[in-house]
């Protein structure tokens, strides 16, 4: 069973308008590379020059922000749900 990744609207132009895509990656780091292979251009939108997830991009695994898990080393397993959500700059 693959891992489903929820893609936010601003990035759907890169995924052929798909709001959810599937990967089979062992952790978030690998997931980001796998996404780039399938949808070229998506990596630089999510990751900065230093290889860190961009400050205003939040990646959630099972509803938890990876910054408070193991960051890009956060493991993924079959059936996991990953959400990529731009930070809300409101308030």
């Amino acid at each position, binding site marked *: 069973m693959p891992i489903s990744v929820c893609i*936010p*609207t*601003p990035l759907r*132009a890169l995924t052929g308008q798909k709001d959810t895509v599937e990967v089979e990656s062992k952790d978030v780091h690998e997931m980001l590379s796998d996404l780039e292979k399938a949808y070229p251009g998506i990596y630089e*939108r999510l990751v*900065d020059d230093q290889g860190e997830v*961009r*400050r*205003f*991009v939040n990646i959630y695994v099972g509803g938890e*922000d990876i*910054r*408070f898990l193991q960051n890009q080393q956060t493991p993924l397993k079959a059936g996991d749900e990953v*959400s990529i*959500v*731009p*930070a*809300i*700059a*409101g*308030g």
Partner: protein
Amino acid sequence: MELLGCQTQSGAFPKGNASERMRGFAVRVLSRRDSLFLAGERTGHDQVRHRGGARERAMAEKFFSQLKCRECGRTYPALATHVCEFDFGPLEADYNYFAIGAVLNRKVIESRPGTMWRYRELLPIVGDPTVGQQVGFTPLVKADRLAKALGVKACYVKNDTVNHPTLSFKDRVVAVALSRARELGFKVVACASTGNLANSVAANAASAGMESWVLIPADLEQNKVLNSIVYGTNVVGIEGAYDAVNRLCSEIAGKYGWGFVNVNLRPYYAEGSKTYGYEIMEQLGWRIPRHTVVCMASGSLLTKIHKAYGEFTKLGLVEKDGFSIHGAQATGCNPITAARKGGTDLIRPVPHPKTIAKSLAIGTPADGYYAVKSMAKTGGWSEDATDEEIIAGVQLLAETEGIFAETAGGVTVACAKKLVATGKIPKDEEVVLCITGHGLKTVEALTGHLAAPSKIKPSLKEFDSLISSGLAKTRVKV
């Protein structure tokens, strides 16, 4: 989740890439603005106003013409958008300081009316301000009795409890946001709010003849709710914390195409806070205070005061001088203070804020990262205050300076006290306290904490016995 304000456009332009959507929106906005402009030319009065406005617009476009991503520096047209399409960083107004410096000096500013618009070149609107023309230039009070109580050499209170028209600093940001909303052709304005912003949007929209919607957590203080409804706005209480309200507003902005002052109009709105900082410097005699203590919800005010100090320095309006900006939060919702104290700029959200300072109860502060950076860069620290300390802070300010602040003001006073006590603000230096909203908005917080008034019959004998009992003396102190 459809969360981005730049997706305001995606409802109307669901297909195509980001830049196509932006272009489409630009066309739509311009046509709206044009029709507004033409409508105004039907009467002689409006014609005069708009002719003057056209000249001013040309001038203003020289000072401000675009938005810029704070992260990557990509530029965007000055429309209703607030997030970078590339890396999702926040967009900010981008100014031509060279052009501003050529026309703005102390004398020019001092010659203008006492409102926040005396710094007009540094605010992101294109024509004349049309909403909130009387906002700002509130007193900077030299607070000697409070200084003594805090144990510090000099203390000033920047008193926005008397800001016009809704008694909080939010009138500043709303004046800019609604003036810009009109320029962009919006007919309906809205906000996500912890109360003060709702009051201000409701009042200023009413005076501007605009339709407004304010969305607030359902459990807000009664006076803050009433103080929105009275203006004829549409108040929607959301069963959830502020962060849930904010998220919903992003979705509504996308679907309905309204001007949300703190979502898709945020780049304009946020700049209004700078005037609080400009006024502090001008009223101090054109200089930057050594220490400033600012209460933090999203953290935006703190970052904008920092920006204001930097801009005046850059423009030569004040001498370059060392200063520290300190943050203040409630202990029950302290994500920014926790980050500063933990030596990180990573903000850990507070999922369930619990504090009587409801106006500061934002668990995921939009500008938390930048607020931490501002504090760190200026050598500022951050503190938090418990509910008891907040109430004591409100009372201390009232008893020493005759200023009744809302609970957020109690947070500022309580945290300033801690900063002095711990030496973060040395006793022989000066501090400006940012007091941003009036106490009558949050009276519930004081219920049960103040002495009841003495009650006697209309008899001199009873009054005499009251005085001799010594009770009255205690009450006078309270």
